[in-house]
């Protein structure tokens, strides 16, 4: 009887019941019909315990950090920086749009935030420079799906939590695929530039840039310290400033080496300074503070200083520092609005995650994965064919459902099946995340399309048509990621978050090991 919960759930979802309630109603109603009302209490406990989690707290924190960063000042800096770097390429502003999305992805974990922030700045700018509005909106929508692929990423936090994976490993695995999507889109813009008759490009550096003394000094110091630290690690210095077991003399040597690295970097930068214009230099300098956010987040997690949740709290503190002290783009009176929006959005997601945890226990009890696994295996035994089929399924689901709910529903059902087939859990997580995120920009129910439409005041259908070439690129990238695991797995492996070296194959150290066939 319990096996019916899945069809019942799908039916409830189709007729429009909010996903949270569907996740609870389908198993709950069947349990009640069977007279197992005591188990309802177990469902409720799981819902509660699902929300009561420390790793999950990264979600509201990253949302909050993104909200603070969005408060003006930062978007325009990233756009001007991208213009100075890439504006002279063919399809200039379109390329700028994509690069800005990649950069923005390191600050926010949501495609919607990306679309609305970049769209409101870039779509009018592109129109003024001779691009059609629908093309501008399509590029914005297509490139903003990079947001949740490059860390930090809301859906990856959710997936990691529900499936018991490491958030850090998923974050790292997303970096290369995200950049790949961006590069793919850039190539597409270049290829179609003549067909669309895109306006000629020029390197745009806005003149008469000014910078406040606080921002000047903050950026100056932050840049040197970061680059210095990078050099310090490259030449083999250990970050043992704080460790108790190292002798004090070693710490002093390290510190001296670190300072020397910073000074070297400073000298190099001063060298470089003479070769570029004053305005170009200021544009770059003004991008330093926002662009250091991903460095701090990833650096903190990778360096082992902090958990992803703590890194997200640091991101909030840094975002506050940048927007209140450095950029002065946020006033104290803005705080309550920003906090309320993050709390509102994350409460809905947290309830959803709690419901998914309770749903997951029923999934396991019902035996549905076994039956589904048998069905899936009856289609084909070849993992490559099955991955193709699953990509099609995910793509269709992504057309109708947001990435978060979709990943919560499908993860517990599909994940174990594919891990049994020998697909590494992290690899599978990336396939799901990228595929469902691209689904945000596919018609008919793409959230990002709706946002792009409301920002640009262009009809959804028109944007949906203009976005097709870019979607083709994204689908191609999905297949690339699916069939070349090294794309997503190399970074987590190189940083020690996945144990298996590429020669052995990433599949061989999953526990329990996949069946030999």
């Amino acid at each position, binding site marked *: 009887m319990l096996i019916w919960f899945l069809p019942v759930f799908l039916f*409830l*979802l*189709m*007729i*429009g*019941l*909010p*996903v*949270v*309630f569907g996740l*609870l*109603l389908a198993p*709950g*109603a069947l349990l009640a019909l069977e007279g197992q009302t005591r188990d*309802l*209490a177990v*469902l*409720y*406990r799981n*819902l*509660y315990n699902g*929300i*009561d*989690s*420390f790793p*999950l*707290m990264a979600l*509201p*924190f990253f949302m*909050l950090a993104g909200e603070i960063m969005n408060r003006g000042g930062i978007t325009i800096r990233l756009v001007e920086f991208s213009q100075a770097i890439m504006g002279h390429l063919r399809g200039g502003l379109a390329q700028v749009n994509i690069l800005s999305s990649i950069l923005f992805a390191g600050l926010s974990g949501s495609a919607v935030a990306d679309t609305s922030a970049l769209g409101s700045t870039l779509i009018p700018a592109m129109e003024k420079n001779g691009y059609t509005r629908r093309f501008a909106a399509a590029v914005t929508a297509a490139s903003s799906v990079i947001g949740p692929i490059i860390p930090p990423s809301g859906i990856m936090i959710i997936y990691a939590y529900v499936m018991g994976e490491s958030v850090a490993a998923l974050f790292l695995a997303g970096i290369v695929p995200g950049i790949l999507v961006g590069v793919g889109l850039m190539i597409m813009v270049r290829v179609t530039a003549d067909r669309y008759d895109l306006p000629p490009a020029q390197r745009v550096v806005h003149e008469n840039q000014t910078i406040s003394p606080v921002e000047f000094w903050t950026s100056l110091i932050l840049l040197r310290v970061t680059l210095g630290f990078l050099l310090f690690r490259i030449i083999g210095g250990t970050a043992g400033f*704080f460790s108790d077991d190292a002798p004090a003399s070693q710490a002093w040597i390290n510190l001296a080496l670190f300072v020397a690295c910073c000074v070297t970097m400073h000298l190099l930068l001063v060298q470089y300074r003479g070769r570029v214009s004053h305005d170009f230099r200021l544009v770059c300098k003004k991008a330093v503070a926002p662009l250091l956010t991903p460095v701090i987040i990833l650096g903190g997690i990778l360096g082992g*200083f*902090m958990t992803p949740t*703590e890194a997200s*709290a*640091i991101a*909030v*503190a840094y975002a506050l520092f940048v927007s209140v002290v450095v950029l002065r783009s946020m006033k104290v009176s803005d*705080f*309550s*609005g920003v*906090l*309320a*929006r*993050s*709390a*509102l*959005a*994350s*409460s*809905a997601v*947290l*309830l*959803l995650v*709690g419901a998914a945890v309770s749903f997951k226990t029923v999934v396991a009890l019902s035996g549905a994965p076994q039956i589904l696994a048998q069905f899936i295996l009856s289609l084909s035994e070849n993992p490559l064919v099955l991955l193709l089929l699953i990509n099609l399924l995910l793509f269709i689901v992504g057309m*109708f*459902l*947001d990435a*978060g709910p979709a990943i919560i529903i499908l993860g517990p059902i599909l994940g174990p099946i594919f891990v049994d087939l020998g697909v590494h859990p992290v690899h599978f997580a990336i396939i799901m995340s990228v595929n469902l995120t691209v689904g945000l920009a596919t018609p008919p*129910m793409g959230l990002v399309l709706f946002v792009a439409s409301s920002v640009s005041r262009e009809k959804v259908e028109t944007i949906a048509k203009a976005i097709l070439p870019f979607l083709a690129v994204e689908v191609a990238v999905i297949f690339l990621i699916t069939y070349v695991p090294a794309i997503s797995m190399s970074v987590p492996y190189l940083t020690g978050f996945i144990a298996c070296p590429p020669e052995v194959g990433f599949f061989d150290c999953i526990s329990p090991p996949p069946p030999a066939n």
Partner: protein
Amino acid sequence: MPLLLGLLRPLEKLNDVLLAIGRALAIAALALMVFFILYQIFMRLFFDAPNWTEEAARFLMLWMTGLIGPLAYRQGGFVAIDMLERALSRVLSSLLSLLLLGCAMAVIWTCAQLGWENVNSFTARGNSASLRLPLDWFGGERIRFKNAWAFASLFVGFSLLVLVNLELILRQLVTLLGGQARLKPLAEAAPID
């Protein structure tokens, strides 16, 4: 219709007030969460890691969810596939919405009941591992947090959801009877800057 509106208006007022309070408390909870975790990192790097910050932040997150989740529901923040609803004619769509709200009510009501049982359960009488009310600062005695205090968060959340869902049902009934023009838009009923 006058009866429905007569029921709806006071409920709307009540929800406005309750959800505004919930929103304010949730904002405070989120701000405190960030503060506690930052404090934890600071203390761990330079002194000894405090043992209570993590649990306190989780406690606050539960309450944040319970207190502001209902407002998210009221504003349509719970994801659903509404294609069918939009494809149907006005009356049919209204009937379907009522059916869905009924389903939602079944879930919410059951959860509220289970939540109440949970608050009064045996485990709820247990003490928190690390959380204390520091009444010794004011010359009193330290009181350990009861588990029930955390359990209450979702009970309160589902109770508020019952009220919100009731409001939504009444609104949908009014719409079904053709009185859509006399409804306050929900955005106005609950402002978020």
